[in-house]
């Protein structure tokens, strides 16, 4: 590693008094082709409460360490080094925004490792957040409206596509464009087909350029212009996600103000459940939900199933109420993280629909 780059990387790993300093250091590292990435999570009781759990036995034994002030530097030893992860210890920076989302930033592979270990050791406390296809054009549009000179184009994407007649299947489509397409054109073409985005490669042009990738679970990486990418893509997307997260809150008997449940619905534009085989495809998809179990009482013609989420003990019931929607009835205890995880699983692996109130 050249001396200049060594200094740049060192400045990234040094402590930072503020988030702009951290982002500037990361941006410099990015310019030197150092792979910078990040992720977005939700801490159920807040970041400081989450980090205080590092003092507990299991986390302590695992070797979680954290610095004292925000942005916090989380570090932990690597159990099984891989070619991509050769270091003995990895780390990532974490801070919380005003909406309650936790941002993580650092070297791409290290951040991924830290997120994985956080979700293993603190399951139920920290949950992933997800974007929906419709969130992206909205947030990118907001960013472009704030900066007239900004142009955002899609240079590649991965999407799921629902194909087939009677027996439908999910196929993965990956495409890279020789010349990037403006995001408005890209998303209007996407609407015409039954596709939903899993990851996007974006190029930003304007006063400063940027290039990066963002995935459905809000993990991202950047190889040019981190600050520009962060402020014009990640931050607006985080705002949209945060606004939508309210939909999942306080739906169970325990949390709801009226102490009665507030059901949710996933609605599709087409009459998806007209074909009874879609019920079975949904059951097959639900059974793949990690850290959860599904009890199917009645598979067809209407579906009635119960889901128990092992990460935090949430439980809810699923009904197919008509040909174009799926009803989710929370139980006595159902957390927002669990509902969001379930909805994303259905959206990502079955078919993407609109999550909305069941009772208007």
């Amino acid at each position, binding site marked *: 590693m050249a001396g200049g780059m060594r200094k740049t990387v060192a400045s990234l790993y040094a402590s930072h008094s503020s988030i702009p300093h951290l982002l500037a250091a990361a941006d410099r590292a990015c310019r030197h082709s150092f792979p910078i990435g990040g992720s977005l999570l939700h801490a159920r009781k807040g970041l400081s409460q989450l980090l205080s759990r590092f003092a507990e036995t*299991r986390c302590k034994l695992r070797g979680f360490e954290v610095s004292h002030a925000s942005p916090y530097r989380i570090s932990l030893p690597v159990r099984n080094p891989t070619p991509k992860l050769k270091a003995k210890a990895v780390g990532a920076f974490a801070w919380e925004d005003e909406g309650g989302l936790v941002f993580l930033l650092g070297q791409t592979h290290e951040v991924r490792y830290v997120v994985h270990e956080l979700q*293993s*050791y603190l*399951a*139920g*406390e920290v949950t992933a957040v997800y974007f929906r296809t419709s969130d992206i054009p909205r947030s990118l549009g907001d960013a472009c409206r704030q900066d007239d000179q900004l142009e955002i184009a899609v240079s590649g994407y991965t999407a799921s596509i629902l194909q087939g007649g009677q027996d439908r299947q999910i196929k993965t489509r990956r495409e890279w464009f020789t010349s990037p397409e403006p995001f408005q054109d890209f998303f209007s073409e996407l609407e015409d087909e039954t596709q939903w985005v899993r990851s996007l490669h974006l190029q930003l042009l304007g006063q400063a350029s940027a290039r990066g990738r963002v995935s459905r679970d809000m993990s991202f990486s950047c190889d040019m212009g981190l600050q520009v990418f962060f402020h014009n893509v990640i931050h607006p997307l985080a705002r949209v996600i945060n606004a939508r997260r309210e939909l999942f809150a306080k739906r169970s*008997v325990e949390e709801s103000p*009226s*102490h*009665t*449940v*507030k*059901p949710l*619905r996933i609605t599709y534009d087409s*009459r998806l459940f*007209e074909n009874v085989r879609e019920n079975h495809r949904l059951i097959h998809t639900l*059974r793949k939900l990690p*850290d959860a*179990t*599904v*009890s*199917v*009482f*009645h598979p067809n*013609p*209407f579906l*009635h199933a*119960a889901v*128990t989420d*092992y*990460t*935090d*003990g949430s*439980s809810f*019931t699923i*009904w197919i*109420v*008509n*040909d*174009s929607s799926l*009803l989710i*009835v929370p*139980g*006595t*205890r159902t957390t927002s993280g669990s509902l969001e995880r379930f909805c994303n699983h259905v959206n990502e692996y079955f078919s993407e629909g609109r999550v909305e109130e*069941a*009772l208007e």
Partner: protein
Amino acid sequence: MSRLDRQRKDHETQLRNAVDNYQQTVLALKAFGNEILFDDQTRTLSPGGTAHCGRKLRTSANNRKSKEEEQKPDLVVQRSLQLATIAEAKLGFPTTPNEFEGRISQCLDQVEKYDDDLTGWYNAGGRRGTPAHDIVLLVNYEDAKRVERELRARREAGGFVVTRSFSVISIANIRRAGGVFWPELDLLGDGRLLDATKTEKLANRLPIHPEKLATNPQFGLAELYDCEPPEPLMMNLVWRGIDAILTQEQRDAVRFDGFVELTASLQEVCDLIRQRGWTFLRHDSRDVDVPDTTWVSRAIGRFVSMKWATRVEGQRESFRFTYKFRRSPYEQFVRFVAKRRAYADETARKKAERQEKASHKKGQAQKRAEAQREATRREREAKRMPLLENAIRNGTLKPRRTRKGKAAFEGPGRV
């Protein structure tokens, strides 16, 4: 497929159908109860209205069928001080004529018991009064027409007398035009309720929306009513209840150590199920306690057989559960119970076979012994007859008739 496998598959199918029937019954009771509690003018649930599952009501001394005895209808809905509805759910009638008629007679007996000045209504806040009440029979769509026809015939023949408003309401899963597809309540024939608006609504078929039922504070999440559910369903509720009380530390223990052990008594498990909202709200001591401890005890007994739980030594109703994050526990319960029943059937069949063989052998042996005795008797008789005839010819024996007219011989000694 072996005979045992076939039996196991049959039992699995029967169990799934039984679970389905049970849940349809719960859905029917909830749907009907919600509709009766719904005020069509304010478009909300009637404040002060209550729904009771298995409430103990007492018949009067004038009851035609059962004098001064306690009855427990499946559902009692008290919309106000003046108006109530009693519903009995009978989903699933036999197909054979004799059994069908027997079942109908049972239903009608129950209905006639409810046709009385019943006492034991819920009196919240000390309010007094005996409401006027309807009687409703909830049946499956498939059985509805048959049942309604039979009831009408019996009523016309005078074999079934009800003085109060009585109706048969069916619950069916009907695909409607436009793709909406959901269970509906349908009031059949010329049945009626005291509330004419409700009668009309139900006669026009009422679609049931689970999202609306779920928000009912008295039974929105109920999965049990006053009848023991099929074993896999009860086991599933117990397992989900245990999962719900795990602390985060216990979950971490399961995640990292593979399992965690926790102890709970029978009563604690019953309380757990109630706390999760899986039963109708119990308003007072006249409402039946659901689930019954025997149901839960049987379910936990199955867990012990599956080695998912053990009994705590020295404490009869205390159990130690070995909790793990299991894949599809409900499916495992169905398969386990089906397998046990198939084995029980097979054991019973083999025992019956052995007994039949044994009795067949015994019968054969008896027949052989009988035949042997008969042969011996004939042989002796055959030997005896010629000697007798010679003695008569020689004059050694003289035949005579006894006073009773029987043949006898006079002469020295036996022949």
